[in-house]
């Protein structure tokens, strides 16, 4: 036991003395939260728009003013003709072209209908859809104002209530997701690098001939990273709740328990990776390249799982992060207990046992 | 390559050479000379500062203070010129394990400026001398340790440098292989190559023309093996070392 503690101490020194890595480890979560909280948003802003106003009357002027009021859209230029649209889009700055037909106001007065066209650069279909949506909303609002005095019969009004997240704060989604990603990546990365490092530098052999049992070596390596993972999760939770008001509506104990479980899953995955290769470089490439994008994209962190094709959803089920993401969101935002997330908990447990047993088997055979 | 300095009889001169890392003084004001063609041994226990000193002489590490001249070039301002004229065999590593013998020769020889034809000739010579014909396309990792070391040495001098630095070259091999290794060193020295070798094997000191002993960063003894044995009234270098160590303890 004493030997074991000395070993843990050695691993602790490894981490703490490498202060450059430590700084990055601890600085990473707050910086990512900052980015997600303030920089990354799907709300459109500062969209450059070009206009072809073939009418140039009071109504089109009013409409243009409404569209360019506020900071959604920025007036870029007035194009002389339709043939210039292609060139403008190619330059890449303008994302929408608004076209008013000639005699716009006249037509409205006489026939009650006027036409306009919105052309979006749909290279980014998401942005295009938002742009068209926002523009239409502004136009529709203007239209409603025009028809204010009329009492339109047969009106269905709707009232909306947003549950769990009244203000539609993006933070509610990304703070739990961020915890998931950071825990997964850091734990898996660190463990795999730590073990392969000893192998690569040749110090592993010395460990193996010592009286330490393989399981003790592994455990000793895992313990410091477990603590590190918990620290990181706490940092994210603290920043998330103080700066962005993300609540923890469920049981703190349950959250802690699930967190530890997930860290163990990630650590055991890192362990598995370290048994596949002897080189730090390979271990790193596998954990970073192989884990980062799939964890970010398939866990439901950025893109909702329901939108993906079924085949991908099946695949996503093999990503441990997916399950933890569900569990942590439920605990934090819905405040539910184990009775709701028992499935996710069991699955995570299963993953962990699976990874550890394969690793142990490989570890033993290599001796 | 023409030497632009005064023709001197010394390959290496060092004067009060010092290297500190923060509070720790690894090399403490050492001074010595090495004549051309000499086999000079740098002895001492592990951690005495031998490797640090050598790395300064090779231009791998900048001295904190003091002067040194290698192959006529200044160790502060002319490190690149030094490197053109020396060979080096590091303690940790010799040749790339995942490349073949021939590929390693092509690499190092090429970097030192040897042309294709020359390389071919030298490769053939090397293979013959070491009796390794037929093994040139084997990966280095397939060679046993003793062979790796002999190969590393041969590659280190493939460009006929004036001096070759060897950092603990015979670690971990049996005495017979060590003996064979030293034969290679003798052969190189007989061709005029200055050999600067560090080691903690005291019996290897006997093979050197002159030795210097380092302890805790300082040179505590210097001279030919015979001079030192006479001085300390013993019959081998091991005992010389023990006697010196003891006398330092008493101080």
């Amino acid at each position, binding site marked *: 036991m004493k030997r074991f503690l000395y070993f843990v101490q050695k691993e602790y020194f490894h981490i703490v003395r*490498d202060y450059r890595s430590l700084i990055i480890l601890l600085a990473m979560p707050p910086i990512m939260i900052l980015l997600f909280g303030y920089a990354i948003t799907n709300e459109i802003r500062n969209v450059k728009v070009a206009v072809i106003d073939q009418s140039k009357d009071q109504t089109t002027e009013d409409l243009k003013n409404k569209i360019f009021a506020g900071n959604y859209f920025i007036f870029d230029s007035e194009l002389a003709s339709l043939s210039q649209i292609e060139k403008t889009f190619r330059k890449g700055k303008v994302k929408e072209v608004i076209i008013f037909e000639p005699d716009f106001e006249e037509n409205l007065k006489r026939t009650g209908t006027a036409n306009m066209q919105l052309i979006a650069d749909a290279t980014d279909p998401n942005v295009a859809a938002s742009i068209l949506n926002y523009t239409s909303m502004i136009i529709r609002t203007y239209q409603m104002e025009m028809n204010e005095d009329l009492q339109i019969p*047969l*009106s*269905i009004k709707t009232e909306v209530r947003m549950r769990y997240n009244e203000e539609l704060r993006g933070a509610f989604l990304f703070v739990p997701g961020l915890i998931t990603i950071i825990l997964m990546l850091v734990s898996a990365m660190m463990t795999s690098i730590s073990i392969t490092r000893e192998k690569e530098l040749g110090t592993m052999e010395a460990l193996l001939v010592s009286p330490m049992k393989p399981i003790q070596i592994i455990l000793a390596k895992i313990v410091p990273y477990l603590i590190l993972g918990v620290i990181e999760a706490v940092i994210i939770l603290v920043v998330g709740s103080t700066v962005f008001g993300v609540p923890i509506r469920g049981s703190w104990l349950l959250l802690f328990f699930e967190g530890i479980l997930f860290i163990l899953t990630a650590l055991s995955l890192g362990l598995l990776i370290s048994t596949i290769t002897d080189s730090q470089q390979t271990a790193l490439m596998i954990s970073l390249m192989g884990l980062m994008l799939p964890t970010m994209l398939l866990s439901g962190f950025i893109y909702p799982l329901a*939108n993906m094709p079924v085949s991908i959803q099946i695949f996503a089920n093999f990503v441990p992060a997916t399950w933890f993401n569900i569990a942590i969101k439920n605990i934090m935002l819905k405040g539910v207990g184990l009775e709701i997330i028992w499935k996710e908990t069991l699955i995570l447990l299963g993953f962990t046992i699976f990874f550890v047993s394969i690793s142990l088997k490989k570890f033993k055979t290599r001796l | 390559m023409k030497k632009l300095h005064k023709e001197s009889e010394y390959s290496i001169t060092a004067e009060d050479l010092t290297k500190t890392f923060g509070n720790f003084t690894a090399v403490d004001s050492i001074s010595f000379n090495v004549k051309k063609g000499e086999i000079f041994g740098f002895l001492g226990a592990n951690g005495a500062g031998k490797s640090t000193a050598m790395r300064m002489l090779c231009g791998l590490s900048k001295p904190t203070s003091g002067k040194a001249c290698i192959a006529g070039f200044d160790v502060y301002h002319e490190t690149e010129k030094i490197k053109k004229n020396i060979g080096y065999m590091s303690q940790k590593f010799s040749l790339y394990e995942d490349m073949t013998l021939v590929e390693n020769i092509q690499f190092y020889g090429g970097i030192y400026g040897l042309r294709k034809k020359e390389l071919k000739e030298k490769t053939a010579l090397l293979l013959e001398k070491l009796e390794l014909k037929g093994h040139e396309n084997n990966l280095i990792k397939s060679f046993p340790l003793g062979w790796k070391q002999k190969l590393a040495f041969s590659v280190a001098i493939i460009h006929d440098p004036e001096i070759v630095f060897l950092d603990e070259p015979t670690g971990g091999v049996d005495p017979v292989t060590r003996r064979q290794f030293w034969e290679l060193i003798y052969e190189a020295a007989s061709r005029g190559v200055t050999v600067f070798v560090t080691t903690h094997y005291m019996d290897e000191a006997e093979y050197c023309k002159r030795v210097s002993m380092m302890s805790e960063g300082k040179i505590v003894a210097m001279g030919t093996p015979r001079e030192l044995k006479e001085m300390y009234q013993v019959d081998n270098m091991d005992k010389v070392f023990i006697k010196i160590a003891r006398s330092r303890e008493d101080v």
Partner: protein
Amino acid sequence: MREIIIILIKEFRQISRNKQMLGIIFGMPLIQLLILANAATFEMKNINIGILDRDISSVSRRLVGKFEGSRYFKLTDWFESEKEAEISLEKGDCDLYLTIPQGFEKDLFKENSAVTFFVVNAIDGSKAALASQYTSSVITDFNQELREENINHSTIAMNLNLMKNINIEYSNWYNPELNYKTFMVPGLLVLLVSMVSLFLSGMNLVREKELGTIEQINVTPIKKYQLILGKLLPFWIIGMFDLGLGLVVSKLVYHIPIVGSVPLLFAFAGVFITVLLGIGFLISTITETQQQSMFLTWFFSVIFILLSGLFTAIENMPQWAQTLTYFNPLRYFMDSVRMILLKGSGFSDISFNMGMLLVYSVVINGLAILLYKKTS
């Protein structure tokens, strides 16, 4: 020049003998491209909607029918009580539920106005906003339909006649079907190539440092720029090859349009990859162990990825973030790859991006060479 080639040959020989790395460098990006491109979409499908219909009238049933028939919604449940609905929302079985109060049809025809309520699970704020929008538009469309049906009602007819209507025609250029993959696949490709390049160069030098093999090189007369360039070239070739492979796969599997000039794309990519390699080398130079290098590389790659314009448009970001993206090489390539592939933009259109990357490349590689010390 000779020396650069010698180093290049050595690196190639070492990489080609490392089967594991080869698999990772070429296999992993491809696999990820094939799988992940299918995952990344914000397109709303299958919004799970539950119904609490307290009116059960012909109008209310027609309204529900609209949701049933919509391609965005999937009807999951008919609730008997509000409690049932709330539980379903909590369990996640539905994303929102619609409540049609008792007397809905009566109020609509007698009082001329009626109200519906819906409750949305807003944990995912943007998804909730979109779901809410779609729900509202289904209801609005239904409303319009109702009005037009009852047009013979005199007051309605008169008012409808007086109503002013702006007709909007929508057009989506370059991607008329709003196919998200058309956007995502080139973006993912850029990401994957970037990661390979960044990590290869980020680990390489520092690995030699950690294993001690770098000493044997530092002691030779090789010049610093020869060393770095010699290591840069093989990775550059690998990156370009990965890109080419990825493009072929994108075309074959995803039918990504290639409207613009492919040589221009490769020329741009060529410069782009040197920037990433330079960053990797710089990291490698200033770190001592592979572990440290790994952390720095990871740190930068996450920030680069998030601020690249792939997951969020750069224009949406606040000014300080937009300024930051100027230091992100991915931003330039992400922008240009789509411009070239989908819009057919030419050299003059991307010249700014290319110019910035050229400057970046020279500066960063220069820095790496400068900071590399053969003598410590």
